[in-house]
């Protein structure tokens, strides 16, 4: 194959179907997209460890993960949706409504029902999103933009602007208890990441997700039930957003404090940072996890170094621009 590359080089840029140039030993834009996140992650980790003495401590690192468990869980699930060629902009609203529903159930029924109920709410809302975008053939971007208004409105109708406080101490277990500093929420994040990573790479369903997002027509011609797979990715996303909502409600013992609007962009940014193609068909959950932790480290590092938070926003914004630009350049080839 190296020969084919040479030939293409020899007859200049005229060839319309040049052999793929990424097959050499050179570092290409595709390598940067696929592995750049690891390099950047390690580099930032090392820099922060040197510049800030309090960064490299179990306490601080666990804190970072705990604070980002909710967004991490949502981002891991969003990876599946995006690889499958969809977009879920309703995760913030599902997070909010599930947190509210869970707190309401904890007050009016009991804690176990509250935990299950929050996830069931996420599942149903996700299924609704999936059916809208497949059966009615509405682009998932628009469908979930619309449903996020519906879901957030429904949540606000329940709280009427006042978060629902839960007095039962059992409700706080998920977000605050665990094995020392290793809270159940952190364990849940790790579990979701591991399970979804395995689902994507080791199961037939994962293959279908890649196929549907990579080339829906080819997937259909291969007997893949494209719509079912798409709906399933939205169900997973809804359940993850529901779980995240419960976790944060549990952490503060009340539902409806946070409308979740910041989670949408944060989760999509993390997915894009990890090199998952927003056009579908390419990506990995573990890289999204690195993306989440990278953004979290930037925030944490800026805090530790006492740099004003607006610089942090500017920096994060540029990091995302660079990541997305690399992705776009690599996809164009």
């Amino acid at each position, binding site marked *: *194959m190296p020969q*084919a590359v040479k030939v293409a080089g020899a007859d200049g840029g005229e*060839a*319309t*179907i040049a*052999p*793929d140039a*990424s*097959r050499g030993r050179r570092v290409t834009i595709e390598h940067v997209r696929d592995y750049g996140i690891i390099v950047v992650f390690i580099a930032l980790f090392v820099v922060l460890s040197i510049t800030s003495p309090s960064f490299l401590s179990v306490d601080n690192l666990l804190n970072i993960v705990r604070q980002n468990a909710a967004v991490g869980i949502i981002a891991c699930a969003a990876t599946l949706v995006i690889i499958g060629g969809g977009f879920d902009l309703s995760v913030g609203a599902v997070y909010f409504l599930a947190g509210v529903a869970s707190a309401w159930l904890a007050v009016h029924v009991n804690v176990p029902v509250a935990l299950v109920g929050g996830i069931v709410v996420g599942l149903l809302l996700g299924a609704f999103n999936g059916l809208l975008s497949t059966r009615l053939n509405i682009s998932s971007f628009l469908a979930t933009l619309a449903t996020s208004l519906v879901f957030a409105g429904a949540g606000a109708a329940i709280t009427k602007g006042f978060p629902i406080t839960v007095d039962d101490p059992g409700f706080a277990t998920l977000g605050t208890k665990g094995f020392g500093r290793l809270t159940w929420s952190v364990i849940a994040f790790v579990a979701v990441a591991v399970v979804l990573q395995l689902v994507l790479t*080791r*199961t*037939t*369903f994962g*293959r*279908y997700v*890649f*196929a549907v997002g*990579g*080339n829906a*027509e*080819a*997937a*259909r*011609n*291969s*007997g*893949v*039930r494209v719509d079912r797979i798409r709906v399933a990715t939205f169900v997973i996303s809804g359940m993850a957003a529901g779980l995240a909502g419960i976790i944060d409600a549990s952490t503060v013992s009340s539902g409806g404090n946070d409308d979740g609007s910041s989670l949408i962009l944060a989760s999509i940014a993390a997915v894009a940072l990890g090199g998952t193609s927003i056009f579908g*068909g*390419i990506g990995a959950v573990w890289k999204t996890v690195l993306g989440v932790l990278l953004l979290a480290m930037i925030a944490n590092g800026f805090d530790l170094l006492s740099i004003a938070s607006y610089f942090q926003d500017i920096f994060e914004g540029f990091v995302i621009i660079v990541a997305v630009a690399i992705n776009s350049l690599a996809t164009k080839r």
Partner: protein
Amino acid sequence: MSAPRIELRGVSKRFGNVVAVDRVDLSIAAATVHALVGANGAGKSTLGRMIAGAIAVGEGQILVDGEPVDFASPRDALAHGVALIAQELALAPDMTVLENVYLGVEPRKAGIVARGELRARFDALLESTGFDVPRDAAVRTLSIADQQKVEILRALSRGATVIVMDEPTSSLTRDEAQRLHRLIRDLRTRGVTIVYVSHFLDEVLALADEVTILRNGRLIRTGPASAETEATLVTGMLGHSASADYPARKPAPPGAPLLRVRGLRRAGILRDIDLDVGAGEIVGLAGLVGSGRSELARALFGADPIDGGTIELAGEPVGHLTPTRAFDLGIAMVPESRKEQGLLLDQPVAANTTLPFLRRRSRIARFGWLAKRAEREQVRTLLADLSVKPQSPTALVKTMSGGNQQKVLFGKCLFGEPRVLILDEPTRGVDVGARRAIHELIGALASRGVGIVLISSDLEEVLGLAHRVLVMRRGAIVAEFGADPSMDAVMEAAFGVEQTAGAAQ
């Protein structure tokens, strides 16, 4: 005889390694209808589009009224009075007829469109042409035929005196086509020159003053239409076939048909299709582009819905067919376009190959869990059988050559050991070596008892491989031939040449 309105000198065009138009010299006289005819891929459309500036001229020179021109775009060509009416119409569907006709050239007063003047101009244009289209109707509400009139009006309103029409009647009913022909004759008497690209020979003979025959991109001859018949046109378009060698055919074993189709139909697309395919038999489907070949293939695979008819596999009705069910039953398809319809270019070969069989093959997946090592081993064996290069299950498909990608697409069908294989353009865009290998593979599969439906725009390929050739035309099977029919007979059936008639009506 007047000077040529359009003149071509040594015009050529290549697409990649394919020469679409090869050193064509041609003169087109003013106020005539000049037809370009040829088989699929002969270069007639490419030539027409170059004249109208829709495709850049590769080599050679085009002259309009003796002046060399080098059109950068259809818009540029229009400025020189040359317009294109393409197969796919280019109108703004939600705007009115009037707005479409004058789009971008509206008369303005102080920057505001002068609607009164616009209407007056439009009415004058309608009167001079004798066309009849509702001025204020939205274009999307019009029939295709009326939309074509809007395109013609638009060309005329900008002073076009040469109109290139690319297969203008392919979406029209017979009635509409005849009305279009009347319009074309009127335009000709008003001094407009028409370049008419078509594969409907009866239309060409009835309408054209001169006919140019193309074959494999070369100009065969140009002459008065009155000197041609459908039979002479077909002979000219085909020439003598340079017989490529094809693998020896084993006779198909006799027996009840493996695939039995009766009365298959889909409104406007497929008409009452009866089809039998025996085990080990290669049935070729010939016909022009748009005759319904690919649509039939997709219907047999469950990729497109059908409105009626039955499909039986080994005597059992298949019921409601979907691609999922087709693969379960052992019906597989190599689709027409491997990149758009067949392959996941960003995925490795193994993931592509096994995709249709993850549900029922316990050897590579159990309870939804992939046995990746077993999958790799089995795919590697298959790749060796097909001599795919590189022989690596983990290679990304997009890094492979067209011929090897096509073999992967075959491998994807063969992984499940199909009983019926539907091949739509199995050698499109592959090199000579891969083409030969694929032909041998098709022969080998048939001799193993697979029933094969073969579709190809390359008629030689169909004739060289098939045990039986069915010819489609306008959504129906119109003729059936045994092995090795004469190419002329098949083409005549495909073009709908009357058996008795040697001359035009």
